[in-house]
C-alpha cells in the first residue's frame, strides 16, 4: 500500500483502524483550536497530550516527529528571528552579542509556532495513518464531488511523476551531448532543455489519463459500489460528537472573549 506516490505509512495499529471521519473531525478540531485557542501554551499542551500520544498509538512516532520538525522548524526559526529581533518598540529580554530579542516578539513567535504545530501535526497524523482511498470514500459519502476528491488524492502524485519524467528527459538530452556535470552555471543551463518536453509531455499525459478515467466510468452519476469496508463504532461516534462540541466551545469562548469588552464598555 505504501508507494512512492503517497504519504501513507502502513502499520497495524488502532489509529490506522479508526474511521477516517473520526480522524477528519480531529483535524477540524485542531484547525479551530490552533487558530482560536487563547493564550500561548494551550496549543503546545494539545500537541503533547492529544496528538503525540495518538502518533505513538499509530506506531509512527519516529517518521511523524521527523516530518513535524521538518515542516514546523523553518517557520519557528523565521518567526523567532523576524518577530523577536524586529518587534517595534519592544522590551529587550535576551541579548546575544549584537542581537537583542524583544519579549513581545518572542511571545508572538511562540504563539505562532504553537498554532502551526497544532494544525500541521494534525494533518500529518491524518495522512500518515489513513489510506488515501478510504479518505476519498469518506469524503464522497459526505457529499464531496468525485472529481474534487480525486484531485485531492492525486495531487501528491504529481511531484514524483514530474521527477521521474524529468530524469528520463535529462537522460535523453545528456545522450545528445548536453553537459550536466560541472559547475553551477553548466548545471543550471542544463535545466532549460527540460522545460518544453516536461510541459508538453505532461499535457499529453493528463489528457490521456482523463480519457482513461472516462472509459472507467468515473464521470458516471449513478450509485457506485466499493470494495472498501469502513468500520465505525459507537464510541467513535461519541468521540466525534465530543470533538464537535469541543470545537464549538472553543469558537464560543473566542466569541465571548471578543464580545466581553464591548458588552462591558
Amino acid at each position, binding site marked *: 500500500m505504501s508507494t512512492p506516490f503517497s504519504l501513507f505509512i502502513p502499520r497495524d495499529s488502532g489509529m490506522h483502524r479508526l474511521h477516517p471521519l473520526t480522524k477528519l473531525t480531529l483535524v477540524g478540531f485542531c484547525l479551530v483550536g490552533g487558530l482560536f485557542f487563547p493564550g500561548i501554551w494551550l496549543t503546545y499542551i494539545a500537541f503533547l497530550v492529544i496528538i503525540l500520544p495518538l502518533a505513538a498509538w499509530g506506531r509512527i512516532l519516529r517518521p511523524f516527529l521527523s516530518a513535524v520538525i521538518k515542516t514546523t522548524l523553518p517557520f519557528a526559526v523565521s518567526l523567532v528571528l523576524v518577530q523577536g529581533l524586529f518587534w517595534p518598540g519592544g522590551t529587550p529580554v535576551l541579548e546575544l552579542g549584537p542581537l537583542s530579542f524583544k519579549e513581545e516578539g518572542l511571545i508572538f513567535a511562540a504563539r505562532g509556532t504553537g498554532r502551526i504545530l497544532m494544525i500541521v501535526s494534525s494533518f500529518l497524523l491524518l495522512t500518515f495513518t489513513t489510506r488515501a482511498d478510504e479518505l476519498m470514500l469518506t469524503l464522497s459519502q459526505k457529499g464531496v464531488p468525485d472529481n474534487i476528491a480525486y484531485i485531492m488524492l492525486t495531487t501528491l502524485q504529481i511531484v514524483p511523476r514530474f521527477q521521474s519524467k524529468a530524469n528520463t528527459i535529462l537522460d535523453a538530452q545528456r545522450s545528445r551531448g548536453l553537459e550536466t556535470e560541472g559547475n553551477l552555471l553548466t548545471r543550471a543551463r542544463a535545466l532549460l532543455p527540460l522545460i518544453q518536453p516536461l510541459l508538453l509531455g505532461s499535457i499529453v499525459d493528463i489528457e490521456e489519463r482523463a480519457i482513461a478515467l472516462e472509459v472507467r466510468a468515473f464521470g*458516471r452519476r449513478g450509485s457506485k459500489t*466499493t*470494495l472498501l469496508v469502513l468500520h465505525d463504532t459507537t464510541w467513535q461516534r461519541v468521540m466525534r460528537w465530543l470533538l464537535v462540541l469541543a470545537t464549538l466551545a472553543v469558537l464560543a469562548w473566542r466569541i465571548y472573549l471578543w464580545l466581553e469588552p464591548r458588552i462591558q464598555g
Partner: protein
Amino acid sequence: MIRLRDITYHYPRATTPALDKLSLEVPAGQLCAVIGANGSGKSTLCYALAGFVPHFYRGQLSGHIEVAGIDVAQSSLAEIAGTVGLVFSNPFNQITGARFTVHDEIAFGMENMGVPPDEMRARIDEVLRFAGLTDLADRSPFALSGGQQQRLAIVSVLVMRPKVIILDEPTSQLDPVGSKEVFAVLRDLAAAGESTIILAEHKLEWVAVFADRVLVLQDGRLVADGPPREILTGDNLHDWGLEPTRYTQVARSALNAGRRDNGEALPATLEAAVEYFR
C-alpha cells in the same frame, strides 16, 4: 452492433479530414482488425467509436455513429462508459492513480458502474489469472514494468464486460508471446459472443491469425473490407502502405521462381503456408 454512416471528421483547424465519408457495419461477436499506414485514421476511428471524437477532441464531426445501440455523438461519455471500452497504446496513462494496488485498480471501473462487491472480486480473480498478474495483485500499479502495466490496462477495461471493446495498438510494449496471448483472449471473447472487438494493429501476422475481418484505412477512407486471408494476400497492400506477411511473400516468390500455380489462395499465416507448401 456498430453502425457508421458517412462519417467525416476534421480535427480542430485541420484542412484535410481525418475520417472521410466512412460507412461501416459490424455485427455482434466479430473481431474486426483495422489496419493502415500511419496517419490513415486508425486511431481517429477508435476514438470516434468510443465517443472521444468529438466529445474530447472537439473538431467537426458529421454523419451517424451508433455503437451498441447508443448514438455516440449525442450521448455523454458517462453514458457510453461501461458499454463501450477503449484501450489505447500508452499503458502508464491508463493507470488512474486513484487506487494503490493492482487489485483495486482493476476494481475501479466496476465500482463506478455499481457492480456488487462479490461479483467484483470474482471477476478480478479471473482477470488477474488471465493477465498473469495474480502474484502482483498487492503491488502498486506504478511499480509494474511497461509490459505488466499494459496487461493491467487491458484487463481493467475487459473486466467491465463492455459490449464493444476498442483497442488501439494495445500490445506495443508486449513481447511476441505476450501479444499473442492478448489476441487469443480477444478472439475468445468475440467468439463467445460476449463482445464485439475493434482492434487497430500493425502486427499483420497476428491479424491474419486472429481476426474475423480486416478493414483497411487510407487517408481516412475505408478502402478494403473482407476476410483476413483475402485482404492480406491481395495485390493492393503496397498501395495502402502495408506489407504482407513473410508467408505471403515466400509463396509469391516461389510462384515467380517457377513453382506450379495450382490456383490455391496465397497463405497469410504459418498454418496456411504449411498447407500450401506440403
